[in-house]
């Protein structure tokens, strides 16, 4: 009995370690982005949201997620890409858990499609060059090649806390 436990444990650890290096990738235009898979709570189809007044346009609104009020963010708009019509069949919302000093938040991001789950070990991560675009370099954890394609791995906590919420608050106080 005790042996079985001892055997099982490393396996669990391996799983976790493996999951830590796993990323869910999704498409925005033709670019592939990735988020830490442990942060993904669920993936759901796009449905109508309620607008929030006086917020930047990348805040699409709020959605009822089983009784919780969850804000939905359009990353295309946040990254100053061209916006597209949402399609209830294809457009997806990835519900993520975001950590901040104030605790945990649940937010949704809109993506064109979910593509894959891939493994990227820390050694494979490449530092993104600072090209001064709409995506602040701080929001990117690194770049990785998966199947000869570049995937941009996002630092979701930083992106949401600094890149979105602070933005909204700053706008609200102006």
């Amino acid at each position, binding site marked *: 009995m005790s042996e079985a436990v001892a055997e099982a444990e490393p396996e669990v650890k391996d799983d976790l370690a493996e999951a830590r290096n796993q990323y869910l990738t999704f498409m925005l235009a033709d670019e592939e982005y990735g988020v830490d898979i442990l942060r993904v709570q669920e993936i759901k189809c796009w449905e109508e*949201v*309620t607008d*929030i*007044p*006086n917020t930047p346009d990348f805040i699409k609104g709020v*959605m*009822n997620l089983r009784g919780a009020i969850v*804000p939905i963010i359009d990353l295309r708009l946040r990254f100053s890409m061209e916006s597209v019509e949402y399609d209830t069949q294809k457009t997806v919302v990835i519900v993520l858990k975001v950590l901040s000093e104030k605790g945990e938040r649940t937010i949704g991001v809109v993506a064109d499609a979910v593509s894959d789950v891939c493994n990227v070990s820390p050694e494979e991560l490449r530092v993104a060059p600072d090209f001064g675009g709409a995506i602040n370099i701080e929001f990117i954890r690194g770049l990785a090649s998966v199947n000869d394609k570049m995937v941009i791995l996002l630092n979701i906590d930083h992106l949401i806390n600094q890149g979105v919420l602070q933005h909204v608050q700053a706008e*609200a106080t102006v």
Partner: protein
Amino acid sequence: MSIDLEQFKEIFFEESFEGLDAMETCLLQMEGGNDDLEIVNTVFRAAHSIKGGSATFSFTAVASFTHVMEGLLDDMREGNRAADQEVVNILLQSVDLLRELLTTIREGGDVDESEVSDLKEALQVLRGGEGAQAVPEKEVEAASEKRDIEEWEISFSPDEDLLQTGNDPALLFRELAMLGELSLTYDASRLPDFEAMDAELAYLQWKMTLKGCSDKAAIEEIFEWVEDECDLEITAVQPDRRAEDRREGDRRLTSRRTGSRREKDPQKSKAAAASSSIRVGTDRIDTLIDLVGELVITQSMLSQLGEDFSMDKLENLKTGLGQLSRNSRQLQESVMSVRMQPISFAFNRFPRMVHDLSQKLGKIVRLETTGEDTEMDKTVMEKINDPLVHLVRNSMDHGLETPEERRAAGKPEEGVVHLSASHQGGNIVVEITDDGRGLNRDKILSKAIERGLVQEEDDIPDQQIYNLVFLAGFSTADSLSDVSGRGVGMDVVRRNIESLGGSVVVRSTPGKGSIFTITLPLTLAILDGQLINIKGQTMVLPLGSIIESLIVDKTQLNAMAGESEVYSLRDEYIPIIRLSEVFDLSDQQDDLRTALLVVVESGQDKVCFVVDDLLAQQQVVIKSMESNFCKVGGVSGATILGDGNVSLIIDVNDTIRLAKELGMEHLQAQQEQGNAKYKQARKMLEVTG
């Protein structure tokens, strides 16, 4: 098979604190000259149950103290003692001490024995020194000898003040005798001459032999409560060699330990203290159970209907659903009412505070309360307590004058502090009124100028000046006292109240007194809402803030300075706010002729909101936007409607602020202008009429 007493401790504490509150109220009534026997009985009963409870949980200090207190109360009950000032004061002190003791025990702290014995002594002195119990001096001889079971030798020399902590050696001996055969000899060598003897001190020492007893722990347990107040030696004696080995007893315990028992408690009790509970009347629980019963019946009816449904049963289905919605609404109301408590819970602590404070300040103060039955949410009440205490203290310290000053001002010597609570719309209004000197306008103003809060040349209405006291670091008291005057209070008061979604204002008349008005929302979780439609979006407007809704009468529309408009309704000109503009919902201007106007009020402001349509009225559950997002201007929260969609709840106050910011600063000016125009028109009419 020991019963875990831990789970009952919390209940005991709560009941005890309630009992103490009741005692306090009654004692204050007694002080007012009410010597009704029933009041004494209430106090006695409360003391008695605290005594019983604390003895069960081995809180000896409390038990022994209440015992002495009970003695005094018993005298009063028997009519042997009148409830004079001295008695009431000492009893009030006792109540304080007990409260302190219980709090200390609850938090696992150390009990300050000296304070307890001081007051206990005072109580005994008051009773005429009857407190000291007769010391049993006769030998307790145990009967026949038993066989070779372990035997113990106990030497017990109590400290002189053992009796004053309510312990009685005779009781200890009786308990020992229950463990086995006890033989006992006393040593009166410490006994002084009769003249020098103090009846309340213990002089005797004892040597005991306990035969046929079990384990040492049982003996130690008996002495557990007195171990700090005596020299105790428990020695085991082997039956075969007890004569010779008496001295070198194999196990020896010298007991002069200090507080070893107490040290292990803290963690345990602290965890218990953190949990909060609520007392709910059984009638409310019964209603809940009834309602749940009805709900179950409705549910089974509906599921039966669903099993073989056909269109001709549609009518039944509709009735069933109607019943379901009625049931759930009633259930919701009752569940919410469980959280509601009358504000008397908060008010009841004030008589005592006023009593103590008036003595300290040398002022004569009468406290009046009205509307104690007003119910409010428990959370709101807990948070409102401190601000209330602060405001009452302030009124007494700064507001009310000394008797001499009052006489000089031609007022009765007795000052009045009035606490009142009432429902007003969707709010609870608590007012603290005093008939003192009122706030000093000039002093506040000069202080405000000194601190750069206002400009000297600013022309500020008096009432606005008074409200400056709520700003941080503002105190006008010339000298600091330990009652108030540090200027940290008022802004904390305001912050606390605002964190509950309430507001506080002060009105004052020099020489006549001041009134602090606190407005609070009824409950924090559920709101009566009016659903409205603005450009296709459904939003919720708190029903409590709506005064009326109306169809636009074109002739009453007045455009001022081109853009913004006011609507003349009866005697007023009310500014119009286009919600679609404030919330940036549409670029299209509303056509006011087809829109509806909702007149809302928030604080002093009264405005018209332009909406496209009024939808249903329903209760909505408020959900925070901040938990997953951040504060949104003009919105107090969100809710989920019956169809699963999210709807935003409008914060009327903030919306008005937004509207003002939105280039509508002229609003106020125009309103005044409008009113002036109206008055002018009226005057013209009067002249011509």
